[in-house]
């Protein structure tokens, strides 16, 4: 056995290697020029959003466009603080002059509890529509399975797929092949990955009633992770890898069909039979779009949005901005899944605070739940496809950019 401390070796090498780094000092003018270029691009994007939003009729039929206020005055009712979920439906919200709606955690009316499961980090609690579950650990992802739970990643066993019984006792663990799991729309199936050896990962499709699983072996170069992205039907799983070129569709019967010509798959829709993909990249972000996986045809693409996730009915996608700042995406948009047309866009309420969405998931066909950080104040917010917003949790202030909570069945990008 060689006696050496590999941590020290690594630290010393990194320090020595970087000690030689000098290069050309970056001047303030160069930084300011870069900042102007980025701002110009963001302004163009924001302008395009305003034009698009102002001209689109909402699929829910709510009269947002007709309620458009040409003077750009914000409706005072929207930021009232006291309405309760039992009150009569509020009037349709009014967008700002640029056609967008405010993205904020402050001054929102309180809405109902979340309709999806989420983990509260510090309390190690899983909040579900049926009540609170005290977890042994704050699992990275967790979903109901075989009258118990299936989890991926924990602090004690970080790289593992963990099965727990109804009393939350661990019954089985496997080495994980990635960091994510994917759940079918009706919750009847869950997909995850198990590492068989260095470069060999097993993609698993498991009925959540505990019936026999279906597996596909996938070779992933360099020991990279492999993750399920979503389902196209109960028997068909879409997968993705950090290895770059390893992405495809696993079908019943054992076949693996590679997805080609894209850089990454972000989501799959059972209802629409479509996938969302990253198709190209640019200086300050990439271009994403929606693809028909059967024909390989790209239905549309947008260079203003990224990480497109389908609504349960497959008619809409929720999208991040094409670029991220520190805490996450600075805007959130809902687009028509078949055309890419903007339906609604949320942009920061306060100009002097960094706002970022760390995670956003569909709660139902008409509402999105987002975890929003506004200058260190974090909360879960419900965003309607009609532009309405309400608070789902209290505001928690974090000092260190950590996440107070995350959605239990959705990956953190």
């Amino acid at each position, binding site marked *: 056995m060689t*006696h050496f401390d590999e941590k020290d070796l690594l630290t010393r090498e990194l320090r020595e290697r970087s000690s030689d*780094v000098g290069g050309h000092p970056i001047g303030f003018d160069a930084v300011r020029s870069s900042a102007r270029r980025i701002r110009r691009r963001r302004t163009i994007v924001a302008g395009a959003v305003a034009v698009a939003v102002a001209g689109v009729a909402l699929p829910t039929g709510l009269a947002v466009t007709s309620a458009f206020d040409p003077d750009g005055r914000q409706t005072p009712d929207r930021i009232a603080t006291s309405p309760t979920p039992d009150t009569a439906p509020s009037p349709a919200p009014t967008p700002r002059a640029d056609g967008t709606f405010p993205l904020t955690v402050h001054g929102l009316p309180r809405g109902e509890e979340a309709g999806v499961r989420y983990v509260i980090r510090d309390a190690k609690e899983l909040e579900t529509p049926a009540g609170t579950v005290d977890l042994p650990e704050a699992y990275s992802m967790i979903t109901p399975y075989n009258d118990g739970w299936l989890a991926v990643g924990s602090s004690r066993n970080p790289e593992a797929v963990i099965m727990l019984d109804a009393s939350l006792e661990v019954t089985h663990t496997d080495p994980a092949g990635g960091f994510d799991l994917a759940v079918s729309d009706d919750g009847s199936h869950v997909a995850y990955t198990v590492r068989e050896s260095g470069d060999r990962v097993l993609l698993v499709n498991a009925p959540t009633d505990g019936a026999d699983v279906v597996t596909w072996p996938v070779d992933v170069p360099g020991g990279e992770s492999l993750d399920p992205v979503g389902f196209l039907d109960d028997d068909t799983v879409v997968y993705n890898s950090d290895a770059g070129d390893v992405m495809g569709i696993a079908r019943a019967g054992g076949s693996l069909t590679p997805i080609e010509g894209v850089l990454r798959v972000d989501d799959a829709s059972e209802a629409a039979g479509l996938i969302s993909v990253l198709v190209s990249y640019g200086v300050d972000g*990439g271009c994403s779009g929606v693809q028909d996986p059967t024909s390989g045809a790209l239905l549309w693409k947008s260079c203003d949005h990224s990480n497109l996730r389908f609504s349960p009915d497959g008619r809409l996608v929720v999208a991040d901005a094409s670029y991220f700042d*520190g805490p996450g995406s600075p805007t959130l948009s809902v687009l028509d899944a078949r055309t890419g047309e903007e339906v609604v866009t949320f942009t920061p309420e306060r100009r002097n605070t*960094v706002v970022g969405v760390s995670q956003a998931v569909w709660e139902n066909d008409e509402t999105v739940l987002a975890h929003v950080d506004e200058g260190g104040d974090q909360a879960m917010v419900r965003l309607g496809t009609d532009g309405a917003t309400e608070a789902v949790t209290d505001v928690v202030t974090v*000092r260190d950019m950590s996440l107070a909570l995350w959605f239990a069945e959705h990956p953190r990008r």
Partner: protein
Amino acid sequence: MQLVIEGAATGMEREQAAARSTRDAEFEQYMAARQPSLLRTAYLLTGDQHSAEDLVQTSLAKLYLAWDKVQRREMLDGYVRRIMVNENNSLWRRAWKRKEVTTDEVPDRVGTSDRPDHGESSALWEFVQTLPRKQRAVVVLRYYEDLSESEVAETLGISVGTVKSQSSRALAALRERVHTRPILARDGEEER
């Protein structure tokens, strides 16, 4: 009356210009103080000088745009570090890098050094460069920046468990590499 209004407007403009100037001076001061350190971290993340400079410039530009919004100044370092790591891990840079890698270009060697190199150092550096991008970010933040596991997790927006697993995988790979290339360990043994 008109004179009063014009005078007020000019005063307001002066105030705005003064505020902008103070803001820029403050940013420049921060930039000058932190740039060498950011460049070193960026170099370790990217593996070459050109990409490192580009990464730092873009990250500082994004920080400049958000300067007024980061109200808690003690969060500046964490904020810019997070921008830098996110930017480096961004899909377009990964894709760009993949395209560059296919040209088989040898990564830049930075400057020159008088320290003796018997081969173990470059072998170690080669090892670092083979690490998957996220794992490499964990290694750099943990073992170079000396951040705690929870600080690394916060910077990367991942769980502490993932930080643990990624760093232990990197160390395991290094250990395995040492068994096949014992020269890597020589430095450490000589010092004992």
